[in-house]
């Protein structure tokens, strides 16, 4: 090979490396940007007066002095709407039967859309469901709902070659000439005064309980559940993993049994997480009955099994990387095997073991499948620490899935879904950062 080709190959390889890194960075950006952007909307958004009302009435938070005055203004702005509606109702009664029938269903749609937008009309009795007691709390949702008031939607299936086409007709045309006609202009022009949007910083999203299945409030039960599950899993997995690694490195005699064990551990690392979940259900809950129902305990145990192989592997590698001379030195000073491990080998391998812990902690926090059958429920209160022994908990990974697929108002709570994703990512990031900092400090201490 000539010098020229070697140089060329060298350049080509560093080019490839750059491309690979660039692609990784792009992928990361592509994933993180929407998470950050849309997740941040759970915390910072334009909140309407309804949001402030919910905060005050349901969460005891807000300005009790200024709020009534503001509410009065909003009510005053809304007053003409109810007046127009009443006028139109009276007008309908004077209509002929056939025309009245024509308007009646269309009118009901308008009335309903307004209730969704502004909340129940004054004087109506309070609905049972909490979600029906309030109007739209977010400005972006307000505009969507306003659109529904202003336009009627119909699906046209008559067009050949298309499954169905959405046709929007302005309601103002439907009601042209009636007393309802001015309503639409009024709403379009005065929506600001009726809803009074204000930039809201809702950091309590993390620490608030959720009400009426996440339509109101925050995600504290999920955050707490995730922390319980992760820390619980580490509590079981770290001692087991480290002890197993010590045994494999320092005590076990190399032989068939040990190589078989190692193969088993590697295989265990490749088992799909749903299998761990089913195993957890079958073993921890149905066979040894660690708790009567799903519980944080059962979930933590299942998660600990899931991360055990990673932990053992990394701990083993860290222990094997400790210079043999340390061991010799300790033994030559009269230390027993156990003492050598405790005072010399473990401290020196701690940074490596911590790396393994970091990786598995992130995994335990984010795993969904193992906790479906063993720990997670969709809705629940934040648990006290002793309740983790026998009670299930909501948890971020499971609730992200649940809110995106099974919630009855999926579209209304996009901000909650993204807020949960952002929170989970941040929790994992913080856990990792704490471990990395700890690791850096220990290595620095070891290096001198």
């Amino acid at each position, binding site marked *: 090979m000539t010098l020229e080709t070697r140089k060329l190959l060298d350049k080509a390889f560093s080019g490839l490396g750059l491309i690979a890194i660039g692609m990784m960075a792009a992928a990361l950006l592509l994933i993180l940007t929407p998470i950050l952007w849309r997740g941040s909307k759970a915390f910072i958004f334009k909140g309407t007066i309804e949001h402030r009302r919910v905060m005050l009435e349901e969460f005891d938070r807000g300005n009790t002095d200024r709020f009534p005055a503001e509410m009065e203004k909003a009510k005053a702005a809304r007053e003409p709407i109810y007046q127009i509606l009443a006028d139109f109702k009276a007008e309908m009664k004077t209509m002929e039967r056939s025309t009245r029938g024509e308007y009646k269903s269309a009118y009901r749609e308008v009335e309903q859309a307004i209730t969704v937008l502004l909340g129940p009309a004054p004087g109506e009795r309070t609905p049972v469901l909490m979600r029906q007691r309030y109007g739209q709390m977010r400005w972006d949702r307000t505009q969507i709902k306003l659109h529904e008031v202003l336009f009627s939607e119909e699906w046209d299936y008559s067009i050949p070659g298309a499954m169905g086409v959405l046709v929007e007709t302005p309601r103002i045309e439907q009601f042209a000439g009636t007393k309802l006609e001015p309503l639409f202009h009024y709403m379009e022009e005065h929506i600001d005064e009726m809803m009074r949007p204000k930039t809201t910083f809702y950091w309590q999203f993390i620490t608030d309980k959720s009400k009426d299945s996440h339509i109101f409030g925050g995600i504290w039960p999920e955050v707490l559940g995730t922390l319980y599950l992760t820390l619980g899993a580490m509590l079981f997995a770290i001692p087991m993993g480290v002890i197993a690694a010590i045994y494999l490195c320092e005590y076990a005699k*190399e032989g068939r049994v040990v190589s078989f064990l190692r193969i088993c551990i590697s295989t265990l690392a490749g088992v799909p997480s749903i299998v761990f979940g089913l195993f957890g259900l079958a073993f921890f809950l149905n066979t040894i009955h660690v708790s009567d129902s799903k519980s944080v305990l059962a979930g933590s145990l299942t998660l600990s099994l899931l991360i055990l192989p990673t932990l053992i592997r990394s701990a083993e590698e860290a222990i094997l990387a400790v*210079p043999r001379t340390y061991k*010799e*030195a300790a033994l*030559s*000073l009269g230390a027993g095997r156990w003492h050598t491990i405790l005072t010399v080998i473990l*401290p020196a391998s701690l940074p490596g073991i911590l790396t393994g812990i970091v990786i598995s902690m992130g995994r335990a926090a984010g795993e969904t499948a193992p906790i479906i059958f063993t720990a997670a429920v969709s809705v629940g209160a934040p648990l006290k620490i002793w309740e983790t022994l026998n009670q299930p908990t909501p948890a971020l990974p499971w609730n992200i899935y649940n809110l995106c697929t099974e919630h009855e108002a999926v579209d209304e709570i996009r901000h909650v879904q993204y807020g949960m994703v952002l929170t989970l990512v941040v929790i994992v990031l913080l856990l990792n950062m704490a471990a990395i900092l700890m690791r850096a400090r220990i290595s620095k201490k*070891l290096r001198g």
Partner: protein
Amino acid sequence: MTEEITMKKIDAFAERGNEITGHETHVEAKNFSLFYGNFEAVRKVNMQIPKRKVTAMIGPSGCGKSTLLRAINRMNDLIPSAHAKGEMIFDGHNIYGKNIDVVTLRARVGMVFQKPNVFPKSIFDNVAYGPRLQGMRNRQKLNETVEQSLRRAAIWDEVKDRLSANALGMSGGQQQRLCIARALAIQPEILLMDEPTSALDPKATAKIEDLIGVLRENYTLVIVTHNMQQAARVSDLTAFMYEGVLVEFGKTKQLFTNPKNPQTENYITGRFG
């Protein structure tokens, strides 16, 4: 300059090597063999190591001198395939016998290794490691032991102000002397040194050699070395090993000036090895 001092030293030590008369045996190998699997690394060695003298072991690489040294405190046990035959008698007991507590043996036979192997702990903790193992918890007693050990290893003045600093921050020569201090802190009777200066520069080597000269007053020293001049400089007795066999063992001056065995002569005159 260095050369001159060294030459002088050879004379001084070699002179002393002549004075050995009636001495007590501290460790005795009787028909001692050590195997790695089927390979016989040490072959039927008979050797009497005297008390409070410096015994050097020389020989070409792979001749079994290090293995023999490590057999004295059973460090070979770390290698799973290693096993011994014959007897190694220390304090009246065969240390390869059934009822020997290796931990106690190693507390009485200290060792210094080829590469300085200080723990990644503070200087104080390094020296206090052995005493703490033996159950010394009293802070004042520990302080005393550490200071005494560091003084004996001639490193006290260099480190007394930074006992809590990490030992890995010291120079190689200092680290090796710290290792010696650490070994001395458990108050051994014998100190084994496995090529203690091979990783050090001449200046640090000179310091360690000086130290050996002082330590001989209180300890039995066994030192393996590749450096024949060093053996001549520091030891009272020298053993020459070749292919696992103890070829010649005698007073250093005699072995270097008038070897009985032609193989020894070939080696020390540099014809092979």
